Protein backbone atom coordinates (compact mmCIF):
# COMPACT_ATOMS: atom_id res chain seq x y z
CA UNK A 1 0.00 0.00 0.00
CA UNK A 2 1.85 3.14 -1.15
CA UNK A 3 1.65 5.93 1.35
CA UNK A 4 1.91 9.66 1.07
CA UNK A 5 5.54 10.85 0.95
CA UNK A 6 6.84 11.25 4.49
CA UNK A 7 7.57 14.93 4.02
CA UNK A 8 4.08 15.79 2.75
CA UNK A 9 2.17 18.29 4.82
CA UNK A 10 -0.81 20.61 4.66
CA UNK A 11 -0.46 24.30 5.35
CA UNK A 12 -1.91 27.74 4.67
CA UNK A 13 0.64 29.48 2.52
CA UNK A 14 0.85 33.08 1.24
CA UNK A 15 0.88 33.88 -2.46
CA UNK A 16 4.00 35.80 -3.48
CA UNK A 17 3.09 36.55 -7.09
CA UNK A 18 0.54 35.50 -9.67
CA UNK A 19 1.11 36.72 -13.24
CA UNK A 20 -0.54 35.99 -16.57
CA UNK A 21 2.57 35.27 -18.61
CA UNK A 22 0.86 34.41 -21.88
CA UNK A 23 -2.88 34.78 -22.59
CA UNK A 24 -4.81 32.51 -20.20
CA UNK A 25 -1.71 30.96 -18.61
CA UNK A 26 -0.55 32.04 -15.18
CA UNK A 27 2.63 31.59 -13.21
CA UNK A 28 2.06 31.67 -9.46
CA UNK A 29 4.67 31.64 -6.71
CA UNK A 30 4.07 30.99 -3.04
CA UNK A 31 6.33 30.93 -0.05
CA UNK A 32 6.62 27.36 1.18
CA UNK A 33 9.98 26.51 2.75
CA UNK A 34 9.13 22.91 3.70
CA UNK A 35 7.61 22.21 0.32
CA UNK A 36 10.55 23.83 -1.46
CA UNK A 37 13.02 21.73 0.51
CA UNK A 38 11.25 18.47 -0.27
CA UNK A 39 9.81 18.78 -3.78
CA UNK A 40 11.22 16.70 -6.62
CA UNK A 41 10.61 17.08 -10.38
CA UNK A 42 7.33 15.48 -11.40
CA UNK A 43 5.72 15.83 -8.00
CA UNK A 44 2.59 17.90 -7.47
CA UNK A 45 0.61 19.85 -4.90
CA UNK A 46 -3.11 20.00 -4.17
CA UNK A 47 -4.33 23.59 -3.91
CA UNK A 48 -7.55 24.98 -2.53
CA UNK A 49 -8.68 28.44 -1.63
CA UNK A 50 -9.94 28.73 1.92
CA UNK A 51 -12.62 29.21 3.06
CA UNK A 52 -14.70 28.65 -0.08
CA UNK A 53 -16.60 25.38 -0.46
CA UNK A 54 -17.20 26.04 -4.12
CA UNK A 55 -15.30 24.38 -5.63
CA UNK A 56 -15.44 21.79 -2.88
CA UNK A 57 -12.37 19.81 -3.87
CA UNK A 58 -8.76 20.91 -4.24
CA UNK A 59 -7.03 20.69 -7.62
CA UNK A 60 -3.66 19.16 -8.49
CA UNK A 61 -0.83 21.29 -9.93
CA UNK A 62 2.65 20.16 -10.92
CA UNK A 63 5.61 21.75 -9.20
CA UNK A 64 6.85 24.04 -11.99
CA UNK A 65 9.85 25.51 -10.25
CA UNK A 66 11.55 25.71 -6.88
CA UNK A 67 13.66 28.76 -6.11
CA UNK A 68 14.95 29.03 -2.56
CA UNK A 69 11.86 28.99 -0.37
CA UNK A 70 9.54 29.75 -3.27
CA UNK A 71 7.54 27.13 -5.07
CA UNK A 72 5.95 27.95 -8.40
CA UNK A 73 3.13 26.46 -10.42
CA UNK A 74 2.01 27.12 -13.99
CA UNK A 75 -1.67 26.83 -14.80
CA UNK A 76 -4.20 27.51 -17.51
CA UNK A 77 -7.41 29.28 -16.49
CA UNK A 78 -10.12 26.85 -17.54
CA UNK A 79 -12.86 26.50 -14.93
CA UNK A 80 -14.16 27.89 -11.68
CA UNK A 81 -11.20 26.70 -9.61
CA UNK A 82 -8.47 28.10 -11.82
CA UNK A 83 -10.64 31.19 -12.35
CA UNK A 84 -10.55 31.90 -8.61
CA UNK A 85 -6.87 31.05 -8.48
CA UNK A 86 -6.12 33.56 -11.23
CA UNK A 87 -7.70 36.30 -9.11
CA UNK A 88 -5.45 35.72 -6.12
CA UNK A 89 -3.09 38.47 -5.08
CA UNK A 90 0.16 38.75 -3.18
CA UNK A 91 -0.45 37.89 0.47
CA UNK A 92 -3.67 35.90 -0.11
CA UNK A 93 -3.63 32.49 1.54
CA UNK A 94 -3.83 29.15 -0.22
CA UNK A 95 -4.22 25.75 1.34
CA UNK A 96 -1.37 23.67 -0.02
CA UNK A 97 -0.90 19.94 0.42
CA UNK A 98 2.32 18.42 -0.78
CA UNK A 99 4.72 17.50 -2.16
CA UNK A 100 2.70 14.55 -3.48
CA UNK A 101 3.37 11.70 -5.86
CA UNK A 102 6.49 9.84 -6.91
CA UNK A 103 8.13 12.26 -9.34
CA UNK A 104 10.44 11.44 -12.25
CA UNK A 105 13.34 9.04 -11.66
CA UNK A 106 16.46 10.97 -12.67
CA UNK A 107 18.61 9.02 -15.11
CA UNK A 108 22.34 8.39 -14.94
CA UNK A 109 24.20 11.59 -15.98
CA UNK A 110 25.55 9.86 -19.09
CA UNK A 111 22.03 9.23 -20.44
CA UNK A 112 20.72 11.28 -23.36
CA UNK A 113 17.33 12.78 -22.43
CA UNK A 114 14.40 13.59 -24.67
CA UNK A 115 11.72 15.60 -22.88
CA UNK A 116 8.33 15.95 -24.56
CA UNK A 117 5.77 18.55 -23.51
CA UNK A 118 2.34 19.19 -25.01
CA UNK A 119 0.54 22.43 -24.10
CA UNK A 120 0.25 23.05 -20.37
CA UNK A 121 1.99 19.68 -19.86
CA UNK A 122 5.12 21.84 -20.00
CA UNK A 123 4.36 22.70 -16.35
CA UNK A 124 5.23 19.14 -15.32
CA UNK A 125 8.59 18.92 -17.11
CA UNK A 126 10.08 22.40 -16.52
CA UNK A 127 11.48 21.54 -13.08
CA UNK A 128 12.79 18.27 -14.51
CA UNK A 129 14.58 20.13 -17.31
CA UNK A 130 16.32 22.39 -14.81
CA UNK A 131 17.54 19.35 -12.87
CA UNK A 132 18.65 17.52 -16.03
CA UNK A 133 20.60 20.55 -17.24
CA UNK A 134 22.44 20.63 -13.94
CA UNK A 135 23.23 16.91 -13.83
CA UNK A 136 23.49 15.45 -17.29
CA UNK A 137 26.75 15.21 -19.19
CA UNK A 138 24.87 13.84 -22.21
CA UNK A 139 22.63 16.17 -24.25
CA UNK A 140 19.03 16.99 -23.35
CA UNK A 141 16.42 17.84 -25.98
CA UNK A 142 13.05 19.48 -25.33
CA UNK A 143 10.30 18.80 -27.85
CA UNK A 144 7.55 21.29 -27.12
CA UNK A 145 4.23 21.40 -28.94
CA UNK A 146 1.45 23.94 -28.56
CA UNK A 147 -1.73 24.73 -30.44
CA UNK A 148 -0.97 28.38 -31.06
CA UNK A 149 2.34 30.26 -30.92
CA UNK A 150 0.72 32.60 -28.38
CA UNK A 151 0.78 29.81 -25.82
CA UNK A 152 4.54 29.29 -25.88
CA UNK A 153 5.86 29.77 -22.37
CA UNK A 154 8.92 32.06 -22.25
CA UNK A 155 11.91 30.00 -21.28
CA UNK A 156 14.62 32.37 -20.14
CA UNK A 157 15.67 29.93 -17.41
CA UNK A 158 16.24 27.18 -19.98
CA UNK A 159 17.76 29.18 -22.85
CA UNK A 160 21.28 28.25 -21.99
CA UNK A 161 23.66 25.42 -21.24
CA UNK A 162 23.21 23.11 -24.16
CA UNK A 163 19.48 22.47 -24.09
CA UNK A 164 18.23 21.86 -27.59
CA UNK A 165 14.71 23.26 -27.78
CA UNK A 166 12.48 22.29 -30.70
CA UNK A 167 9.05 23.84 -30.95
CA UNK A 168 6.00 22.81 -32.97
CA UNK A 169 2.88 24.92 -33.33
CA UNK A 170 -0.34 23.74 -34.89
CA UNK A 171 -0.85 27.19 -36.43
CA UNK A 172 2.66 27.04 -37.91
CA UNK A 173 3.47 30.54 -36.68
CA UNK A 174 6.58 29.39 -34.87
CA UNK A 175 8.88 26.39 -35.18
CA UNK A 176 7.63 23.37 -37.08
CA UNK A 177 3.99 23.32 -38.19
CA UNK A 178 2.55 20.28 -36.46
CA UNK A 179 2.72 18.54 -33.13
CA UNK A 180 5.20 17.02 -30.72
CA UNK A 181 4.83 13.76 -32.63
CA UNK A 182 6.18 15.43 -35.77
CA UNK A 183 9.14 16.72 -33.77
CA UNK A 184 9.71 13.24 -32.39
CA UNK A 185 9.71 11.77 -35.89
CA UNK A 186 12.55 14.02 -36.96
CA UNK A 187 14.43 13.77 -33.65
CA UNK A 188 14.54 10.01 -33.29
CA UNK A 189 16.68 9.36 -36.40
CA UNK A 190 19.40 11.51 -34.81
CA UNK A 191 19.63 9.04 -31.93
CA UNK A 192 19.84 5.99 -34.17
CA UNK A 193 23.51 5.42 -33.51
CA UNK A 194 22.94 5.40 -29.73
CA UNK A 195 22.01 2.20 -27.88
CA UNK A 196 18.43 2.53 -26.55
CA UNK A 197 19.71 1.93 -23.01
CA UNK A 198 21.54 5.27 -23.18
CA UNK A 199 18.40 7.25 -24.02
CA UNK A 200 15.54 8.10 -21.72
CA UNK A 201 12.40 10.01 -22.56
CA UNK A 202 10.06 11.97 -20.32
CA UNK A 203 6.66 13.25 -21.34
CA UNK A 204 3.60 15.16 -20.17
CA UNK A 205 0.72 16.39 -22.28
CA UNK A 206 -2.71 15.56 -23.64
CA UNK A 207 -3.76 11.92 -23.67
CA UNK A 208 -3.71 11.64 -27.49
CA UNK A 209 -0.12 12.87 -27.53
CA UNK A 210 0.99 10.48 -24.79
CA UNK A 211 -0.74 7.58 -26.49
CA UNK A 212 1.10 8.31 -29.75
CA UNK A 213 4.46 8.82 -28.02
CA UNK A 214 3.99 5.55 -26.10
CA UNK A 215 3.44 3.76 -29.40
CA UNK A 216 6.67 5.14 -30.88
CA UNK A 217 8.73 4.39 -27.80
CA UNK A 218 7.43 0.87 -27.54
CA UNK A 219 8.41 0.20 -31.13
CA UNK A 220 11.96 1.35 -30.38
CA UNK A 221 12.21 -0.34 -26.98
CA UNK A 222 13.10 3.04 -25.48
CA UNK A 223 12.48 3.84 -21.83
CA UNK A 224 9.76 6.42 -21.32
CA UNK A 225 8.51 8.05 -18.12
CA UNK A 226 5.12 9.68 -18.48
CA UNK A 227 3.51 12.09 -16.06
CA UNK A 228 -0.19 11.22 -16.18
CA UNK A 229 -3.22 13.36 -15.44
CA UNK A 230 -6.48 12.22 -13.94
CA UNK A 231 -9.52 13.66 -12.23
CA UNK A 232 -8.56 13.70 -8.56
CA UNK A 233 -10.41 14.38 -5.32
CA UNK A 234 -7.83 14.02 -2.55
CA UNK A 235 -4.35 13.72 -4.11
CA UNK A 236 -2.98 11.56 -1.29
CA UNK A 237 -4.41 8.10 -1.85
CA UNK A 238 -7.65 7.92 0.08
CA UNK A 239 -10.41 8.61 -2.45
CA UNK A 240 -9.22 6.11 -5.06
CA UNK A 241 -10.85 8.23 -7.72
CA UNK A 242 -7.82 8.91 -9.93
CA UNK A 243 -6.92 5.41 -11.08
CA UNK A 244 -5.83 4.53 -14.61
CA UNK A 245 -5.63 1.03 -16.09
CA UNK A 246 -2.46 -1.05 -16.18
CA UNK A 247 -1.61 -4.47 -17.52
CA UNK A 248 -2.04 -7.13 -14.84
CA UNK A 249 1.03 -8.59 -13.10
CA UNK A 250 0.38 -12.19 -14.06
CA UNK A 251 -1.87 -11.88 -17.07
CA UNK A 252 -1.25 -8.85 -19.32
CA UNK A 253 -4.81 -9.17 -20.61
CA UNK A 254 -6.14 -8.57 -17.11
CA UNK A 255 -6.47 -4.95 -16.07
CA UNK A 256 -5.46 -3.60 -12.71
CA UNK A 257 -5.92 -0.05 -11.56
CA UNK A 258 -3.25 2.15 -10.07
CA UNK A 259 -3.67 5.51 -8.40
CA UNK A 260 -2.18 8.46 -10.26
CA UNK A 261 -1.74 10.39 -7.01
CA UNK A 262 0.34 8.03 -4.86
CA UNK A 263 1.54 5.37 -7.30
CA UNK A 264 2.22 8.04 -9.94
CA UNK A 265 1.82 10.54 -11.42
CA UNK A 266 4.93 9.26 -13.25
CA UNK A 267 4.66 5.79 -14.76
CA UNK A 268 6.61 3.71 -17.24
CA UNK A 269 4.72 4.22 -20.50
CA UNK A 270 4.82 0.56 -21.48
CA UNK A 271 3.02 -0.55 -18.30
CA UNK A 272 -0.05 1.57 -18.99
CA UNK A 273 -2.97 -0.19 -20.65
CA UNK A 274 -3.60 2.46 -23.32
CA UNK A 275 -6.44 0.56 -24.98
CA UNK A 276 -8.49 0.77 -21.78
CA UNK A 277 -8.18 4.56 -21.36
CA UNK A 278 -11.10 6.65 -22.59
CA UNK A 279 -10.37 9.82 -24.52
Amino acid at each position, binding site marked *: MPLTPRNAHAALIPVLSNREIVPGIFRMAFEAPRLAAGAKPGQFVMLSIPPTHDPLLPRPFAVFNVDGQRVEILYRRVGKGTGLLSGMRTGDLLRVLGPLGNGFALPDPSVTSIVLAGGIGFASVHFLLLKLLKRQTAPTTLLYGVRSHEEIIPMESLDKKGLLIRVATEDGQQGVKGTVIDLLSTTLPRTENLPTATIESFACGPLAMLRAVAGRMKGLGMRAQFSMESRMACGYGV*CQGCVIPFKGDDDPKQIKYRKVCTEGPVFAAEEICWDAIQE
Partner: protein
Amino acid sequence: MTKIDTTVSIAGLSLKTPVMTASGTCGYGLELTPYFDLSRLGALVVKGISLEPRPGNPPPRIVETSGGMLNAIGLENIGMEAFIAETLPRLREYETVVIVNILGESQEEYGTLVDEMSRHEGVDGFEVNVSCPNVRKGGIAFGSDPEMLEKLVRFLRERTEKPLIIKLSPNVTDIVDMAKRAEAGGADGLTLINTIRGMSIDSESRRPHLATVVGGLSGPAIKPVALRMVWEVAQQVKIPVVGVGGILSGEDAVEFLIAGATAVQVGTAHFRNPAACIEVMEGMERYLERHAIQDVRDLIGSIQLDPSPVA
Protein backbone atom coordinates in the same frame (compact mmCIF):
# COMPACT_ATOMS: atom_id res chain seq x y z
CA MET B 1 -13.39 26.02 34.06
CA THR B 2 -13.61 22.26 34.30
CA LYS B 3 -12.54 20.23 31.32
CA ILE B 4 -15.30 19.54 28.84
CA ASP B 5 -16.33 15.88 28.71
CA THR B 6 -16.46 14.80 25.09
CA THR B 7 -16.73 11.04 25.63
CA VAL B 8 -19.65 9.17 24.18
CA SER B 9 -20.57 5.51 24.12
CA ILE B 10 -21.59 3.75 20.94
CA ALA B 11 -22.53 0.10 20.84
CA GLY B 12 -20.55 -0.59 24.02
CA LEU B 13 -17.48 1.26 22.72
CA SER B 14 -16.26 4.23 24.69
CA LEU B 15 -15.12 6.99 22.34
CA LYS B 16 -12.99 9.89 23.56
CA THR B 17 -14.80 12.19 21.14
CA PRO B 18 -17.91 11.71 18.99
CA VAL B 19 -15.89 12.41 15.81
CA MET B 20 -14.97 9.42 13.64
CA THR B 21 -13.72 9.03 10.10
CA ALA B 22 -16.22 7.85 7.49
CA SER B 23 -15.54 4.65 5.62
CA GLY B 24 -14.16 5.05 2.12
CA THR B 25 -12.74 8.51 2.71
CA CYS B 26 -9.66 7.71 4.77
CA GLY B 27 -8.34 4.56 3.16
CA TYR B 28 -7.10 2.19 5.82
CA GLY B 29 -6.26 5.05 8.19
CA LEU B 30 -2.51 4.78 7.70
CA GLU B 31 -2.69 7.28 4.83
CA LEU B 32 -3.64 9.94 7.39
CA THR B 33 -0.69 9.37 9.72
CA PRO B 34 1.56 12.02 8.08
CA TYR B 35 -1.05 14.64 8.98
CA PHE B 36 -2.24 13.90 12.53
CA ASP B 37 -2.12 11.34 15.31
CA LEU B 38 -4.84 8.74 14.74
CA SER B 39 -5.10 8.36 18.52
CA ARG B 40 -6.99 11.66 18.63
CA LEU B 41 -9.96 10.17 16.77
CA GLY B 42 -13.09 8.92 18.44
CA ALA B 43 -12.91 5.98 16.09
CA LEU B 44 -11.32 5.10 12.80
CA VAL B 45 -13.71 3.48 10.35
CA VAL B 46 -11.62 1.85 7.64
CA LYS B 47 -12.71 1.50 4.06
CA GLY B 48 -15.03 -1.37 3.19
CA ILE B 49 -13.32 -4.76 3.33
CA SER B 50 -14.57 -7.69 1.28
CA LEU B 51 -13.61 -11.35 1.49
CA GLU B 52 -11.56 -11.19 -1.71
CA PRO B 53 -9.70 -8.15 -3.06
CA ARG B 54 -11.82 -6.02 -5.39
CA PRO B 55 -10.27 -4.14 -8.33
CA GLY B 56 -12.96 -1.45 -8.36
CA ASN B 57 -14.71 0.23 -11.27
CA PRO B 58 -13.15 1.59 -14.45
CA PRO B 59 -12.40 5.33 -14.51
CA PRO B 60 -13.64 8.01 -14.56
CA ARG B 61 -14.75 7.24 -11.02
CA ILE B 62 -15.39 10.70 -9.60
CA VAL B 63 -16.77 14.05 -10.59
CA GLU B 64 -17.38 17.20 -8.60
CA THR B 65 -20.95 18.50 -8.60
CA SER B 66 -22.48 21.58 -6.96
CA GLY B 67 -21.62 21.35 -3.28
CA GLY B 68 -20.60 17.74 -3.51
CA MET B 69 -19.12 14.96 -5.56
CA LEU B 70 -20.22 11.75 -7.19
CA ASN B 71 -18.15 8.62 -6.80
CA ALA B 72 -18.28 5.16 -8.27
CA ILE B 73 -15.11 3.65 -6.87
CA GLY B 74 -16.65 0.20 -6.90
CA LEU B 75 -15.57 -0.70 -3.36
CA GLU B 76 -11.99 -1.27 -4.39
CA ASN B 77 -10.11 -2.84 -1.47
CA ILE B 78 -7.23 -5.16 -0.64
CA GLY B 79 -9.44 -7.94 0.74
CA MET B 80 -9.69 -9.44 4.22
CA GLU B 81 -6.51 -11.48 4.22
CA ALA B 82 -4.22 -8.57 3.31
CA PHE B 83 -6.10 -6.30 5.69
CA ILE B 84 -5.55 -8.68 8.61
CA ALA B 85 -1.93 -9.44 7.73
CA GLU B 86 -0.68 -6.01 6.66
CA THR B 87 -2.94 -3.24 7.91
CA LEU B 88 -4.34 -4.36 11.23
CA PRO B 89 -0.98 -4.81 13.02
CA ARG B 90 0.02 -1.26 12.06
CA LEU B 91 -3.29 0.20 13.18
CA ARG B 92 -2.80 -1.39 16.59
CA GLU B 93 0.06 1.04 17.20
CA TYR B 94 -2.56 3.76 17.70
CA GLU B 95 -4.83 4.18 20.69
CA THR B 96 -7.98 4.57 18.72
CA VAL B 97 -11.08 2.48 18.33
CA VAL B 98 -10.94 0.63 15.00
CA ILE B 99 -14.23 -0.15 13.32
CA VAL B 100 -13.99 -2.32 10.23
CA ASN B 101 -16.51 -1.61 7.51
CA ILE B 102 -17.46 -4.87 5.78
CA LEU B 103 -19.24 -5.65 2.54
CA GLY B 104 -20.34 -8.81 0.85
CA GLU B 105 -22.35 -10.05 -2.08
CA SER B 106 -24.09 -12.74 -0.08
CA GLN B 107 -25.10 -13.31 3.52
CA GLU B 108 -22.44 -16.01 3.75
CA GLU B 109 -19.70 -13.59 2.68
CA TYR B 110 -20.68 -11.14 5.42
CA GLY B 111 -20.77 -14.09 7.83
CA THR B 112 -17.24 -15.24 7.00
CA LEU B 113 -15.92 -11.68 7.32
CA VAL B 114 -17.44 -11.34 10.77
CA ASP B 115 -16.30 -14.83 11.87
CA GLU B 116 -12.72 -14.31 10.77
CA MET B 117 -12.24 -10.75 11.90
CA SER B 118 -13.94 -11.23 15.27
CA ARG B 119 -11.00 -13.47 16.17
CA HIS B 120 -8.49 -10.68 15.68
CA GLU B 121 -7.49 -8.24 18.34
CA GLY B 122 -7.53 -4.73 17.02
CA VAL B 123 -10.94 -5.09 15.42
CA ASP B 124 -13.13 -3.26 17.92
CA GLY B 125 -16.36 -3.46 15.99
CA PHE B 126 -18.02 -3.74 12.61
CA GLU B 127 -19.82 -1.29 10.43
CA VAL B 128 -21.87 -3.24 7.92
CA ASN B 129 -22.23 -1.69 4.47
CA VAL B 130 -25.60 -2.93 3.24
CA SER B 131 -25.58 -0.96 -0.01
CA CYS B 132 -24.07 -3.90 -1.92
CA PRO B 133 -26.20 -5.99 -4.25
CA ASN B 134 -27.10 -9.48 -3.03
CA VAL B 135 -26.02 -11.63 -5.98
CA ARG B 136 -28.08 -14.54 -4.65
CA LYS B 137 -31.23 -12.44 -4.66
CA GLY B 138 -31.06 -10.94 -8.12
CA GLY B 139 -28.80 -8.09 -7.12
CA ILE B 140 -31.22 -6.26 -4.83
CA ALA B 141 -29.18 -4.28 -2.32
CA PHE B 142 -29.35 -5.69 1.22
CA GLY B 143 -30.09 -2.21 2.44
CA SER B 144 -33.12 -1.66 0.25
CA ASP B 145 -35.18 -4.70 1.27
CA PRO B 146 -36.44 -4.57 4.88
CA GLU B 147 -36.74 -8.34 5.32
CA MET B 148 -33.39 -9.11 3.75
CA LEU B 149 -31.78 -6.47 5.98
CA GLU B 150 -33.29 -7.82 9.20
CA LYS B 151 -32.29 -11.36 8.25
CA LEU B 152 -28.71 -10.31 7.52
CA VAL B 153 -28.36 -8.45 10.81
CA ARG B 154 -29.83 -11.37 12.77
CA PHE B 155 -27.45 -13.76 10.96
CA LEU B 156 -24.44 -11.61 11.90
CA ARG B 157 -25.65 -11.02 15.46
CA GLU B 158 -25.54 -14.77 16.11
CA ARG B 159 -21.92 -14.83 15.00
CA THR B 160 -20.25 -12.06 16.92
CA GLU B 161 -20.22 -10.41 20.32
CA LYS B 162 -18.45 -7.42 18.85
CA PRO B 163 -20.42 -4.25 18.20
CA LEU B 164 -22.43 -4.34 14.99
CA ILE B 165 -23.25 -0.99 13.47
CA ILE B 166 -25.37 -1.02 10.33
CA LYS B 167 -24.67 1.71 7.75
CA LEU B 168 -28.00 2.43 6.16
CA SER B 169 -28.60 3.45 2.58
CA PRO B 170 -30.69 6.58 2.05
CA ASN B 171 -31.94 5.18 -1.26
CA VAL B 172 -35.09 3.74 0.26
CA THR B 173 -38.71 4.81 0.62
CA ASP B 174 -38.89 4.47 4.38
CA ILE B 175 -35.62 4.96 6.26
CA VAL B 176 -37.34 4.57 9.65
CA ASP B 177 -38.59 1.12 8.70
CA MET B 178 -35.09 0.05 7.66
CA ALA B 179 -33.68 1.38 10.93
CA LYS B 180 -36.28 -0.51 12.98
CA ARG B 181 -35.56 -3.70 11.05
CA ALA B 182 -31.84 -3.41 11.74
CA GLU B 183 -32.59 -2.79 15.43
CA ALA B 184 -34.93 -5.78 15.55
CA GLY B 185 -32.19 -7.92 14.02
CA GLY B 186 -29.92 -7.05 16.91
CA ALA B 187 -27.83 -4.12 15.66
CA ASP B 188 -25.94 -2.16 18.32
CA GLY B 189 -25.98 1.06 16.35
CA LEU B 190 -26.83 2.67 13.01
CA THR B 191 -24.78 4.88 10.72
CA LEU B 192 -26.70 7.13 8.42
CA ILE B 193 -26.45 8.03 5.68
CA ASN B 194 -24.47 6.32 2.92
CA THR B 195 -24.24 8.20 -0.38
CA ILE B 196 -27.32 9.17 -2.39
CA ARG B 197 -27.51 7.74 -5.90
CA GLY B 198 -27.01 10.38 -8.53
CA MET B 199 -25.58 11.14 -11.95
CA SER B 200 -23.98 13.90 -13.96
CA ILE B 201 -23.80 14.50 -17.72
CA ASP B 202 -21.42 16.52 -19.88
CA SER B 203 -23.84 18.53 -22.01
CA GLU B 204 -21.24 19.09 -24.76
CA SER B 205 -20.42 15.43 -25.38
CA ARG B 206 -23.76 14.10 -24.02
CA ARG B 207 -21.72 11.54 -22.12
CA PRO B 208 -22.07 10.74 -18.41
CA HIS B 209 -19.18 11.97 -16.28
CA LEU B 210 -18.81 8.57 -14.60
CA ALA B 211 -17.92 5.37 -16.42
CA THR B 212 -20.67 3.60 -14.47
CA VAL B 213 -23.14 6.42 -15.32
CA VAL B 214 -24.62 6.40 -11.79
CA GLY B 215 -22.64 7.00 -8.61
CA GLY B 216 -23.02 8.04 -5.01
CA LEU B 217 -23.39 11.69 -4.05
CA SER B 218 -21.56 12.95 -0.96
CA GLY B 219 -20.49 16.26 0.51
CA PRO B 220 -22.35 19.31 1.82
CA ALA B 221 -25.05 18.88 -0.84
CA ILE B 222 -26.45 15.87 1.05
CA LYS B 223 -26.26 17.28 4.57
CA PRO B 224 -29.92 18.34 4.79
CA VAL B 225 -31.04 14.86 3.71
CA ALA B 226 -28.70 13.19 6.19
CA LEU B 227 -29.84 15.45 9.03
CA ARG B 228 -33.50 14.78 8.28
CA MET B 229 -32.93 11.02 8.25
CA VAL B 230 -30.90 11.09 11.48
CA TRP B 231 -33.62 13.15 13.14
CA GLU B 232 -36.44 10.86 11.98
CA VAL B 233 -34.61 7.67 12.92
CA ALA B 234 -33.17 8.79 16.26
CA GLN B 235 -36.67 9.35 17.61
CA GLN B 236 -37.81 5.88 16.63
CA VAL B 237 -34.97 3.58 17.75
CA LYS B 238 -33.28 2.98 21.10
CA ILE B 239 -29.85 2.17 19.67
CA PRO B 240 -27.40 5.02 19.00
CA VAL B 241 -27.23 6.72 15.63
CA VAL B 242 -24.00 7.87 13.98
CA GLY B 243 -24.62 10.82 11.67
CA VAL B 244 -22.70 11.30 8.43
CA GLY B 245 -23.19 13.43 5.33
CA GLY B 246 -21.48 16.64 4.36
CA ILE B 247 -19.86 17.55 7.66
CA LEU B 248 -17.15 20.17 7.08
CA SER B 249 -17.13 22.09 10.35
CA GLY B 250 -17.63 21.75 14.07
CA GLU B 251 -21.03 23.39 13.73
CA ASP B 252 -22.06 20.81 11.11
CA ALA B 253 -21.18 18.04 13.56
CA VAL B 254 -23.11 19.80 16.32
CA GLU B 255 -26.21 19.94 14.10
CA PHE B 256 -26.14 16.15 13.79
CA LEU B 257 -25.82 15.74 17.57
CA ILE B 258 -28.72 18.13 18.11
CA ALA B 259 -30.78 16.11 15.63
CA GLY B 260 -30.18 13.02 17.75
CA ALA B 261 -26.90 11.47 16.62
CA THR B 262 -24.62 10.16 19.38
CA ALA B 263 -21.55 10.42 17.17
CA VAL B 264 -20.62 11.72 13.73
CA GLN B 265 -18.37 10.76 10.84
CA VAL B 266 -16.36 13.08 8.65
CA GLY B 267 -16.06 11.87 5.06
CA THR B 268 -15.69 13.89 1.88
CA ALA B 269 -14.11 16.75 3.87
CA HIS B 270 -10.96 14.60 4.05
CA PHE B 271 -10.49 15.06 0.33
CA ARG B 272 -10.14 18.80 0.98
CA ASN B 273 -7.93 18.43 4.00
CA PRO B 274 -6.42 15.22 5.42
CA ALA B 275 -6.89 16.57 8.95
CA ALA B 276 -10.55 17.53 8.39
CA CYS B 277 -11.82 15.38 11.27
CA ILE B 278 -9.44 17.14 13.66
CA GLU B 279 -10.74 20.52 12.43
CA VAL B 280 -14.29 19.30 13.00
CA MET B 281 -13.37 17.99 16.46
CA GLU B 282 -11.73 21.25 17.48
CA GLY B 283 -14.59 23.27 16.03
CA MET B 284 -17.06 21.21 18.04
CA GLU B 285 -15.01 21.75 21.21
CA ARG B 286 -14.99 25.50 20.61
CA TYR B 287 -18.76 25.39 20.22
CA LEU B 288 -19.12 23.56 23.54
CA GLU B 289 -16.90 26.12 25.23
CA ARG B 290 -18.76 29.02 23.68
CA HIS B 291 -22.06 27.62 24.93
CA ALA B 292 -20.65 26.57 28.32
CA ILE B 293 -21.66 22.96 27.73
CA GLN B 294 -19.69 20.67 30.06
CA ASP B 295 -20.75 17.38 28.56
CA VAL B 296 -21.17 16.78 24.85
CA ARG B 297 -23.93 14.28 25.61
CA ASP B 298 -26.13 17.17 26.68
CA LEU B 299 -26.33 18.13 23.02
CA ILE B 300 -27.63 14.80 21.75
CA GLY B 301 -31.22 15.09 20.63
CA SER B 302 -31.47 18.58 22.09
CA ILE B 303 -33.34 20.04 19.14
CA GLN B 304 -35.64 22.89 20.18
CA LEU B 305 -39.06 22.53 18.61
CA ASP B 306 -42.14 24.62 18.96
CA PRO B 307 -44.69 23.04 21.29
CA SER B 308 -46.81 21.86 18.36
CA PRO B 309 -44.61 21.55 15.31
CA VAL B 310 -46.21 21.58 11.93
CA ALA B 311 -45.44 18.28 10.23
